[in-house]
Each structure stands twice: as structure tokens, then as C-alpha cells.
């Protein structure tokens, strides 16, 4: 990117209905314009494929953390109970992992869930950029209440004209359109 003082035009089109913004997004995308972001107070089902969001892989993360937890749990119990200090408690000897597995099931299960849930939750927070102390970037406070905002930038759409886009968004049901110039270095 050039180092001259460049500006990016950002258009925020506000809608007051989830269904309408979904239809508008389909319209906009059909005209070859890329939508950078959509801010909404609740999930809009069916929007992701329209604006090009791929399915999240967090479930795979959870699975991986879960298997790690299971392995660690079993390894730990084998070490504590079988390897390091095997004891015969109440006539129930702890001399091999296979013989002891039934009584290790509860802790192995709990530890799997513990690792899967927390591992996924932490990954989720980091990937989402929602961590303690972070600041919100939603363009309008009403987007967490009952308004839906579509963000289009000139960076991604170099040859868009704001007039044509505005009238199109208006037709699609936008109740407010804000245009801003943001300096980028």
C-alpha cells in the first residue's frame, strides 16, 4: 500500500429488521460489492454464506482440547496411582492401568470435559477479540439493541460510487446511511 495520505470511505447502512438486512445483503453482493462486516444485536441465520463467512472451526478445537485432556488425565492417573506409588487400598490393588481403568473413568471424563470446555472458551475469546479490557468497535450503540448495520468500505470495493450505492441501499430498506472518510497510513 502507498505511504501517501490515503483515505478509505466507510459506509454504514443501518436497517431496523433482520430479514430486511439479509435481503439487502444478498442484493448488494449480487451487484459485486463486498460487505466488510455486519453488526447485529443477535445472530442472523443465513447471513454468513451471503457475506462470505466460513464455518468456524471451534468445534474441532474443542475436540482437540478434549482428547488432550483425556490423554493427560489418564497419564496423570497412571502416574499417581500405578507408577509412582502403587497401593493396595481396601483390598483393591492398583498395579496395572487396565485393571484400574473402570475407577478412572469418572475423573478421565471430567477432565476431558474440563479441558474441552475451557480450551474452546479461551480460544473463542481470543479469536473473537473479546477479552477483559478490550474496547467495542460497533459503529452505533443501537446495534446492540434493535438496529442492524452493514459496513462497506472503498478499500475492498475500489470502484464503487457512493451515490449509486446509497440509492440502492435506500431501496433495499436502509433507514440511515452514514459515510465517513477514515485516514489510513
Amino acid at each position, binding site marked *: 500500500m502507498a505511504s501517501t495520505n490515503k483515505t478509505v470511505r466507510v459506509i454504514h447502512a443501518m436497517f431496523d429488521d433482520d430479514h430486511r438486512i439479509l435481503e439487502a445483503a444478498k442484493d448488494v453482493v449480487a451487484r459485486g460489492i463486498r460487505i466488510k462486516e*455486519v453488526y447485529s444485536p443477535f445472530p442472523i441465520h443465513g447471513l454468513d454464506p451471503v457475506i462470505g*463467512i466460513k464455518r*468456524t472451526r471451534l*468445534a474441532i478445537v474443542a475436540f482437540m482440547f478434549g482428547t488432550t485432556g483425556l490423554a493427560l488425565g489418564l497419564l496423570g492417573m497412571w502416574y499417581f496411582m500405578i507408577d509412582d506409588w502403587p497401593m493396595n487400598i481396601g483390598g483393591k490393588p492398583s498395579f496395572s492401568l487396565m485393571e484400574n481403568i473402570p475407577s478412572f473413568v469418572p475423573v478421565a471424563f471430567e477432565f476431558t470435559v474440563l479441558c474441552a*470446555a475451557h480450551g474452546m*472458551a479461551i480460544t473463542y475469546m481470543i*479469536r473473537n477479540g473479546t477479552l477483559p479490557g478490550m474496547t467495542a468497535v460497533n459503529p452505533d450503540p443501537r446495534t*446492540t439493541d434493535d438496529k442492524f448495520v452493514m459496513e462497506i468500505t472503498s478499500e475492498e470495493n475500489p470502484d464503487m460510487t457512493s451515490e449509486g450505492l446509497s440509492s440502492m441501499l435506500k431501496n433495499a430498506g436502509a433507514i440511515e446511511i452514514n459515510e465517513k472518510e477514515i485516514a489510513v497510513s
Partner: protein
Amino acid sequence: MHKESAIRDPLILGDKSYHDITVDVVGPIENKAPRAWYILITIAGLIAIWGLGCVVYLISTGIGVWGLNKTVGWAWDITNFVWWVGIGHAGTLISAVLLLFRQKWRMAINRSAEAMTIFAVMMAALFPGIHMGRIWLAYWVLPLPNTFGSLWVNFNSPLLWDVFAISTYFSVSLVFWYIGLIPDFATIRDRMTNPLSKKIYGLLSFGWSGKAKQWTRFEEVSLVLAGLATPLVFSVHSIVSMDFATSIVPGWHTTIFPPYFVSGAVFSGFAMVLTLLLIMRKVMKLESYITVKHVEYMNIVIIVTGSIVGVAYITELFISWYSGVEYESYAFINRFSGPYFWAYWAMMTCNVVSPQLFWFKKIRTSFLATFILSIVVNIGMWFERFVIIVTSLHRDYVPSSWSMFYPTWVDIGIFIGTIGIFFTLFLLFARFFPVLALNELKTILKVSGEKYKKEDH
């Protein structure tokens, strides 16, 4: 937007818009608290302080101040522990199991039920802690290296399984609850005008912006956490029941315990949710969200789980005779005709007979009847644990060591105290947190709104 049958009653009554939901839920946080709230929190707070005082007295003096003796080594302490853990089962059941079953009505009740779960599990965790006597050594339950003692903890013991089960359950429930709260805190943050509360809710919301990708991840995480929490709910009370079932005490040594405890837990948890919600919907004016339909559905769960519990009681009784083990049969004869017969019959009446009243539609759709019966069920479930624990212990194999248990004022004080702490926490939650999952509720508004149905879509 979701599909819903046109002949069903809408889930949210009263023609609300998205903005109305925000106002209805955030309003009580923005406005001054009603006087009733101050009165209630004062009472609950005083009881909580009394309870904490009793705990301090107990720890500084030793658990000899409880009514325990050589024969009855577990009594009110463990009864209260199991009772609170049981109550703590409704929240995650509602939010996780009902999410997997796509029961949308859960959305009006899951937030407060989860909060209740977390507070109840906190109260539960207190009891094994103080029961140790030397609570400052509580970290010995963790698998720590030998420098702390000379041995590892015993992973064959259900008491250690409990440590893992309760701590996993508590922390996963807390995370599940908080992840759901983040977008709602963002809503409050964006509405607040007072800079201090804006700052606080801004911190609590972790910078949530409601981006499309964030919502995709949010839904995925909720679903996977629900999938993880569902077996967790069932495992926790199964493991609690194994504290008893793996012993050789007559009356405890029963394979029926895990499913029996789990259904009992759901039973008491739903009863406590109803007790709290019926007050909350009135005081916080949430009648449009927590409707008679919700109460009826929860009462149906109470009939089902109450009946499972009833069948379990009768099965236990039958097997004690059918097994031909004289100790086992004596344990049960002693339960219903021994010195603690009143506890047994209180349990039978409250848990087996009273929930059957919900077969009558008039009763299960009546708020007053539901409220009264929910308290009856909670009392009954406390007696169930008391019966299982104390009547099994007080007369075991050696008649010369037979004994009785009499609670002291410290036993009673701590139990009452935990109720006070629980209500204090719940009242604080109701005052400062969004009591309904408001952004989730907005997703079920569209088709369930009356207007939409009138338009005949």
C-alpha cells in the same frame, strides 16, 4: 427467525418489538431498585452474615460443635451438600439439554436458572470444605506432589471423583453462563448514560461488538458447550450418588442410586427455579416473557422426574426385601417405622404424592399452587437426603453403636445461613445482571409475536 406452529401460543406475549425487550430487561438495572428489593436484600444479607458467623465459629472451634457423633459422621452437612448440588442441576439442564432438544421456551428462563445453578453449587461446595474441619488444608484434595504429604490422592475413591466433578461442573457452568452474558452486557453498556456504570458494563462485556463472525462463533460455542455440559450434568450427580453407593452401608449400597439421584436433582432444581421465577416475574414485571406456558412445561418436568423418584423409592423398598439381605431389609424397615419415620413419610408425601397433583391442568397452570408445591418439593428433597444419610448411618451392623443425630444450633445456623447467602447472591444478580437472555429472546420474537401470527405467515 424460527419456525413455529401457528396454533401454539406465542413464546413472548404482548406484541413486543426488539427494543421493548431491551427496555424490559435493562430497565430494572437502569432505574432505582424498588423498595421490596432493599427489604429482601437486608433480610437475606442479615441471614447470610449470621451463616458466615456460624461458619467462622465452626472453623475456629472445630466440627465438634455440630451434632455429629461416632456413629452418625455425616448428617446435615452432607445433606445440605447434596441438596444444594441437586438444586444446582436445573440451570445447566435447562440451558444445555433443552438447547440440544431445540426447546425455545428455555430462553426466557435459562439465564436466571444458570445463575441459580452457580450460586447453589457455591453453597454446596462450602459443605465438604467446612466438613474437613481443617479447611486451610483443603488443597490436599488436589493431586499435589509428595512434598505436601507423603501420598498422592486416591483416584479410586468416589470422594475424589466428586472433587473433579463439582469443580468441573462449577467452572464449566460459570463459563457457559458468562459467554451468554457477554452480548447482553454489551447491550447494557451501549444504553447506559452514567459514565461509571458504562465503564463497568464495558469491562464486563469484554468489548463485544456483535460482528457477524462473532455471532457465528457464539452459536457454535453455545452448541458445543451444551453438548459437553449435557453428559456433565448427568455425571455430576451420578458421582455424588456414588459417594454413597460404592460403600457397604445398608441403605446406601444400591445400584439404582445414579439415575435416582439425577432425576431427584432435576426434580429439586426445577422446583427451586419455579420458586425463584414466580417471584421474579411478578416483582420485575416479566409476565410477558415467563408465561403460564413456561410454568406448565416446568411442572410437566416435575411430574416426570417426581414420578421417577417415586418409582426409585418403591424399587429400593422392594429390593431391600427381595434381596433377602437382613441388614438391607432392616435398614428400610427402620426408615419407615424407626425413630426417623417422620422424615421418611415427609419425604414420601412431599416427593411422591404432591407432584402428582400436577396431573390436573388447573393446578399446573396456577401460579399460587405451583409456588406452594415448589416449596413443598424442596422440603421433600431435603428430607430425602436426610433420610438416606442419617437413617442409614444411625443404625448399622453393630447395635451397640446405634445412635441418634440431633442438630445443634450451628448445624441449623449454617444451613439457614447458606439460604441467606444464596438469596443475597440471587438478589444481586437480579439487580445488576440481565435476568433474561435478552439477545437470545430477540431471535424467537419474530414468529412468536402475536402480530406476526395475525398476519398469517
